[in-house]
């Protein structure tokens, strides 16, 4: 019955993205997925576990997509850092973009001891580490500093875009990222 589990996961993911996590009840998820509460709880135990699974899957999908894009479209490892914000801009401006899971979840669950908040923070750190890895590959001396600067720019732009679609924040974020990368490359 893996298919049913996947269907609940996909349905919940879509509803969380478009309506918000707290605003989406279990009743709505099972109704849209065409299943029952009993089945949902059989696979996920609770709504919180379902939220955590949606976040994990969403983050994995995002990382895999970005990794594939950068690996397939660059010849040198150093090019990946330069292209990072190009692909992020393409993704954020696409019609299907509804926000970044860990950024939205962090805002909806601000309490630090909440497991959803903790996973969101962990995923934010993982993304920063990914940029750190790209910066190291590009021989950036201060890879730690640059990865923090770029992740702050990324998260701020995505939050601005989530608040107002088509705001243009990501366009300026891309230019700012290039300025920072260029500056860090010369150090």
């Amino acid at each position, binding site marked *: 019955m893996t298919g049913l589990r996947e269907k609940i996961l996909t349905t919940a993911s879509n509803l969380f993205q478009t309506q918000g996590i707290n605003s989406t009840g279990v009743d709505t998820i099972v109704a849209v997925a065409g299943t029952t509460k009993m089945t949902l709880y059989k696979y996920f135990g609770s709504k919180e576990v379902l939220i955590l699974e949606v976040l994990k899957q969403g983050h994995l999908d995002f990382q895999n997509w970005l990794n594939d894009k950068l690996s397939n479209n660059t010849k040198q490892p150093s090019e990946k850092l330069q292209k990072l914000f190009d692909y992020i801009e393409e993704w954020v401006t696409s019609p299907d973009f509804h926000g970044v899971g860990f950024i939205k979840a962090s805002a909806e669950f601000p309490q630090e001891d909440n497991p959803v908040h903790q996973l969101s923070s962990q995923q934010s750190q993982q993304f920063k580490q990914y940029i750190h890895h790209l910066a190291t590959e590009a021989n950036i001396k201060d890879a730690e500093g640059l990865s923090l600067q*770029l992740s*702050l720019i990324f998260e701020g732009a995505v939050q601005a875009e989530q608040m107002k679609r088509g705001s*243009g924040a990501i366009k300026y974020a891309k230019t700012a990222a290039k*300025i920072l990368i260029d500056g860090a490359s010369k150090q």
Partner: protein
Amino acid sequence: MHEDSDLLDSSWLIYMLAKSSNTPEGRLLSLFDILNDWLKAPNVLQHCHLSSANHALLLNYCIAQAQALGAENPEILAEHIVLIAHNAAQQNIAHPLSNSLMHAKKAANALILAQTQPAIAVTVKRANTKPIAYGIAATLVLAIGASLIWAPFMHEQQSAPQMHAEASNTHSSKHAVTPAQALTAQDATQMYAKFELMRQGSCQFPEVLQMPDKHKAIYLENVVGGKLPANLEDLAIANQYLAKIRCNYTPMLMAASK
């Protein structure tokens, strides 16, 4: 600071920002210095909260500053800066040693540059990817120029090879050709890289009294003050003095490694 006050949306913060600098850019960037400084103050961490990302008072103030500095889209610049400040302050509270607010300041500065120098992205790309093309173009221009200038202007012809040699470099050549030309992104990033390096060391600055009057102003504002020069002519002068500064980085590095 009152209990449960929102540090990022307080009239106190606006007051602190207003007196922090006499330029809108300086006031925007001071936000990060003030937060970095204030979050270390006694009892502040226990009593301030940043639960909401909506800081209307601060946002409106930042929009006014962004408008004053001529940003392409002041609302987006202000919003992005406030979001970065909020996120970095949260990180600073969770991990006080992360230095997140100072990195956020760098990010905010890059965002300001991205909105105030529209040609910046193009300039960065071209400067990085097509130096040979620039060299060829400079050679062609000079060759045509040289063919137009004949014997009566022989001394000008003699200077052409020198200009050509300089054209293959970056801003020194631009200074020679068009003295009042605005700075490119590359100039700005190089300058900021120098300032950043200097901040990590203990530096000895040249004596101001020995400088010509025009140089004094540029030296104080652009070298000591860390503000970007307005044009390439000023940049060349600033670079001249930057080269004279002697820095010792060892003690600071040792301190940072503790």
